[in-house]
């Protein structure tokens, strides 16, 4: 008997609460492994035929019927398998989902006017790449999700400066002035796209890269729209005179 057959028999073996059924299951060829076994002896079919015609069903015909999809009374359905297998499969699924959610890609709703017009005030769902957590691979112009350093919320802003870069500390006034700062090592400078309705580095200073949760790569409006978020920073010819 091959190991595959043994494994399959182990998977579909009835629970411990019916030892008699387990013994008969070992005696009868199982339907799942029948292709790898020699043809069943004629007495096996005779047993099945006799069992179906018997007015008092024996434990052996309960076992054969379970293979046809009829559930036992008081036992889990056969397709669930052993309860321990169900628990293990559930744990594996939860662990895999956690792995993807924390270190791969996650999605979350976003609201607020600070990133207008890139994101709408309401109804936006953001796809966040966790591969860029802690600022890995983030460049100037990217949109990131981060832990707001002054409360426990998660914000979304655009990166304007990385460690060693030079940025304006205030909103550009159009007059050619303003104070600047060099972003310290291990930090970044983030500003919302809607300058008049954003609380960002202009308010609380450089943000530690450790607070970057990921890079926003797409917006999803459920059932209506999917849009990639691209970096708008591009080469320019220079300011034009008004």
């Amino acid at each position, binding site marked *: 008997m091959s190991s595959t057959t043994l494994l399959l028999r182990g998977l579909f073996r009835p629970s411990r609460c019916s030892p008699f059924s387990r013994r008969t299951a070992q005696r009868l060829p199982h339907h799942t492994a029948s292709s790898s076994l020699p043809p069943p002896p004629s007495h096996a079919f005779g047993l099945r035929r006799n069992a179906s015609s018997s007015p008092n069903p024996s434990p052996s015909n309960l076992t054969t019927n379970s293979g046809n999809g009829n559930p036992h009374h008081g036992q889990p359905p056969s397709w669930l398998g052993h309860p321990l297998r169900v628990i293990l499969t559930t744990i594996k699924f939860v662990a895999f989902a956690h792995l993807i959610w924390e270190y791969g890609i996650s999605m979350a709703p976003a609201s607020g*006017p600070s990133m*207008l*017009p890139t994101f*709408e*005030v*309401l109804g936006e769902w953001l796809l966040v790449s966790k591969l860029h957590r802690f600022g890995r691979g983030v460049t*100037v*112009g990217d949109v990131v999700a981060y832990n707001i*350093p002054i409360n426990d919320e998660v914000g979304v802003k*655009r990166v*304007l*400066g*990385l*460690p*060693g*870069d*030079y*940025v*304006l*500390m205030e*909103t*550009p*006034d*159009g*007059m*050619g*002035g*303003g*104070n*600047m*700062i*060099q*972003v*310290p*090592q291990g*930090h970044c400078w983030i*500003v*919302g*796209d*809607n*300058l*008049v*309705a954003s609380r960002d580095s202009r308010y609380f*200073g*450089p*943000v*530690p890269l450790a607070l970057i949760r990921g890079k926003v790569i797409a917006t999803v409006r459920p059932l209506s729209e999917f849009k990639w978020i691209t970096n*708008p*920073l*591009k*080469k*320019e*010819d*220079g*300011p*034009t*005179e*008004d």
Partner: protein
Amino acid sequence: MAPPCPSFSSHYLPAAAQVGPDGKARKTEGGRPIDLARDCELLGFAQYECLVSRPELPDSPVQCWPVQRWFRRCRDKKGTFTAETTAWEGTTSAGSSKTSTS
């Protein structure tokens, strides 16, 4: 929190860009000081000043005015860095307003 960081006027950006975050002088591959206008490519994108006309409505019209921001991406011996030159090069407003509906 971030360590104390000295601020400086945007007029001093060309001089401030000569020093890296580690306090050491920046040099080009040729060993020259960094010249923002000569050694760095000009980049830019727009941010906005938006006004939600009727915030009490979920689909209120939104009116936005672009604010152009300029950057210089430079390369020194240790890699690349970016300097915002919006104030240094002058800010231009496109003048046209963009209206969107949320």
